């Protein structure tokens, strides 16, 4: 399946600063899902985007799917220490065969 890349690999922010991670593919994706994995935990589903240019918000989190459906972003406003973890994008290759990106590890300094 097509690989997805994520940048940055690591991000250290001061509590209260904003954070953005990007997910990029060289081909058009049918959908994008975002997961959060806390240190020592398991991936937890955050959201799914399927439409070109779609934007969804969950409190301080804003998710966007690019117009060409080749990229996506996750933006966190005013980070908190509870936001610490690794954020993965993934696409559904074919019926629950998810292809995950390498993730962006977020550290939030209090």
């Amino acid at each position, binding site marked *: 399946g097509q690989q997805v890349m994520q940048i940055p690999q690591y991000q250290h922010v001061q509590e209260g600063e904003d954070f953005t991670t990007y997910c990029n593919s060289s081909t058009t994706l049918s959908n994008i899902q975002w997961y959060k994995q806390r240190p020592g935990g398991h991936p937890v589903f955050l959201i799914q985007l399927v439409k070109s240019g779609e934007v969804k918000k969950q409190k301080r989190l804003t998710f966007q799917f690019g117009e060409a459906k080749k990229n996506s972003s996750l933006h966190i406003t005013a980070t908190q220490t509870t936001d610490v973890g690794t954020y993965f994008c993934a696409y559904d290759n074919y*019926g*629950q065969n998810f292809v995950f990106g390498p993730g962006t590890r977020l550290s939030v300094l209090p």
Partner: protein
Amino acid sequence: DAGVTQSPTHLIKTRGQQVTLRCSPKSGHDTVSWYQQALGQGPQFIFQYYEEEERQRGNFPDRFSGHQFPNYSSELNVNALLLGDSALYLCASSLGGGAGTEAFFGQGTRLTVV
């Protein structure tokens, strides 16, 4: 309503041994997928079971095999363990396994091969 449960949570095996990991899907779910997550990497798809049959398979050798039981629970078996098999093994369940449906992950089994 229990979520996805996996057992055991941690396991240490010796190179060359065989291991069986177990997964009980979320209540009402009929599809189970297995993933391998090496340290510092994203999960990689191993295979998926639906209606007691392997429906899809990722790029993993035949040493990795599985099974799904009539109650939808599943097992992952790995034979002839290698040091490189050390990883977090995740089970994800869903209903129907169709594209775009939400998958729920278990807490994983951390396998260490020494």
